[in-house]
């Protein structure tokens, strides 16, 4: 039997027969992600969703034009006209009303009479709300949006997309979902992959060193490279299980998370082809191997598990920053091939491409291959480290 395989088998046996370890590493991440995202989703929808009461919007000197625009379906505010500004403010403070608008007495006439070029002060609308109330704050934003739209309408000099034509030419359904996924999922995934590796790698390398069990292995006729390889294969498999668990948790909870404002953010999982999924899997596996071997270097260098975890924190921050770049960068994947040679960034960009529906075969393959090359390079480094007694017996 190949010795690398024997080592890998032992690591896997250690992991998969330990129910507590299995629970905390594989089951728990997925479960936690599902619970947290579902909770966040329901918290959001109760904050903004239809379940909440209709906002109470008060107004002094309400002009007819505003009553009309507020009644339009996209706003749907029923405006309650009151006489006293003071009473309205009290209502806001007591949180019995969300918004108070105060118009000048002859708002419509004053607006019609106002000349932009005159340089004089334009008629002013005062809008009040209670800032500590999140629901009121949300209503405030829509009211401001509504007023600004009205301002745009009366001073109409030009239109943009008047007929509300399909301005987005990327075509196809599920675009809202694709956009959200292409910016959010790579970040989540790369973090999950990293934390999955963090939960198993330090113990296998630094832990064995700390417990003194590594020397027992080193006096068997196993090549150091075989030993390192066996460990990395096993850890890759374990981290993959953990990563898949987080992934499944994310997928199951995303509809709950994105179900904001009652409108389903059309998350059509079927929008992705088998090819997309296949390459996503390849990206995930190659990224895992790269991360496992990278973390193995850190863990092999550290004297204890605790030190390994501390040393890995800066790496974690870098990985998170790289993940965050997916949310910027103009909403699309990088197209130049050399971006796909940078470890971690290449994985994130490939995922942005896949989730955003702009899958690029060549770049994705470059990313997978470069990950494999990095893994090989890291393997050589760890093997070198394992040959160094100063590192392996450091206390």
């Amino acid at each position, binding site marked *: 039997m190949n010795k690398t395989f024997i080592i890998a088998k032992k690591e896997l046996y250690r992991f998969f027969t330990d129910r507590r370890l299995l629970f905390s590493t594989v089951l728990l991440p997925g479960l936690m992600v599902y619970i947290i995202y579902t909770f966040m989703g329901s918290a959001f929808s109760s904050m903004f969703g239809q379940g909440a009461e209709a906002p109470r919007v008060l107004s002094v000197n309400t002009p007819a034009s505003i009553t009309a625009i507020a009644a339009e379906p996209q706003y749907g505010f029923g405006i309650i006209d009151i006489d006293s500004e003071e009473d309205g403010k009290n209502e806001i403070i007591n949180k019995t009303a969300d918004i108070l608008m105060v118009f000048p007495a002859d708002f419509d006439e004053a607006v019609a009479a106002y000349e932009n070029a005159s340089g004089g002060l334009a008629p002013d609308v005062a809008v009040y709300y209670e800032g500590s109330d999140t629901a009121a704050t949300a209503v405030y934003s829509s009211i401001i949006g509504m007023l600004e739209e009205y301002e745009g309408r009366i001073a109409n000099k030009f239109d943009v997309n008047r007929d509300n034509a399909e301005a987005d030419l990327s075509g196809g359904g599920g675009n809202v979902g694709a956009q959200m996924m292409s910016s959010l999922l790579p970040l989540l995934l790369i973090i999950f992959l990293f934390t999955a590796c963090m939960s198993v790698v330090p113990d296998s390398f630094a832990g064995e060193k700390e417990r003194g*069990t590594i020397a027992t292995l080193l006096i*068997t*006729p196993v090549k150091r490279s075989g030993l390192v390889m066996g460990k990395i294969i096993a850890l890759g498999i374990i981290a993959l299980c953990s990563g898949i668990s987080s992934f499944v948790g994310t997928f199951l909870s995303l509809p709950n998370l994105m179900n904001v404002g009652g409108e389903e953010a059309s998350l059509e999982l079927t929008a992705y082809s088998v090819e997309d999924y296949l390459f996503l899997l390849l990206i995930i596996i190659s990224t895992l191997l790269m991360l496992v071997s990278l973390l193995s270097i850190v863990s092999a260098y550290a004297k204890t598990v605790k030190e390994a975890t501390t040393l890995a924190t800066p790496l974690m921050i870098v990985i998170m920053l790289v993940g965050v770049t997916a949310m910027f960068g103009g909403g699309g994947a990088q197209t130049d091939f050399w971006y796909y040679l940078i470890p971690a960034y290449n994985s994130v960009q490939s995922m942005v491409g896949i989730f955003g529906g702009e899958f690029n075969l060549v770049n994705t393959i470059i990313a997978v291959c470069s990950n494999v090359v990095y893994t090989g390079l890291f393997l050589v480094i760890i093997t070198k480290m394992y040959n160094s*007694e100063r590192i392996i017996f450091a206390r």
Partner: protein
Amino acid sequence: MMQEILVAKNLKKTFRLSAKQRQIEKTSLYERIAVSDLSFTANEGEIFGLLGPNGAGKTTTLRMLATLIAPDSGDAFVDGASIVSDPEGVRSKVGFLTSELRLEDYFTPNYLFDFFSSLHNVEPQKMEQRKKMLFEKFGVDKFAEVKVANLSTGMKQKLSIIISVVHDPKIIIFDEPTNGLDVLTAKVVTDFLLELKAQGKTIILSTHIFSLVEKVCDTVGVIINGKMVACDTVKELTKEKNLEDKFFDLYVQEEGASYE
């Protein structure tokens, strides 16, 4: 004529000193010599003892022979295999036991025996046979499915001995084999050493216990401060006086008048 099976030639090993340690020792040297120009030969079928005080370099020498660490210069040949150029070859011929070799708490003796046997390329049939024999001899058979974490200290030690010889090595290297054992367990170990010798195995052991050397060793090498100050058969060394007195003579000769 006995066959030479282990030849150590001019083994040297130094360790780096930290800045603070240099201050304490008031030295400008960056390295401390742990083992210096050490040569000796062990014959097939004998028990060779390395005798020396704490910190003399015994463990360092054994660790080099077991290829756990590499010598700075010099070489040793274990049944023809060089510890420098063929460490894997050496490892397959040698069984090494020291207190620093721990077994993973999670596994059972049964699993560990199988695991290390397969790493040593032991045939499954031979593995089962040896497992039964060794487990019975050391009384591990009743605890074969108990995790190492739950074994007593003595049982762990016995299991370590078993694991070190899973592959039936020709040469067995024991670092302080009876340290920390009660008299009963220590006897099981010394009996085992003699039994291995009877099977024609070669044993290299390190100790600071004179009685153990006198009891089991054929040849003894005395190490003081990393240097081999005497190496002869126990019979020859103890011709005039007992081993303990002889050792003190050697120590005074090497280190000057006081041995405080």
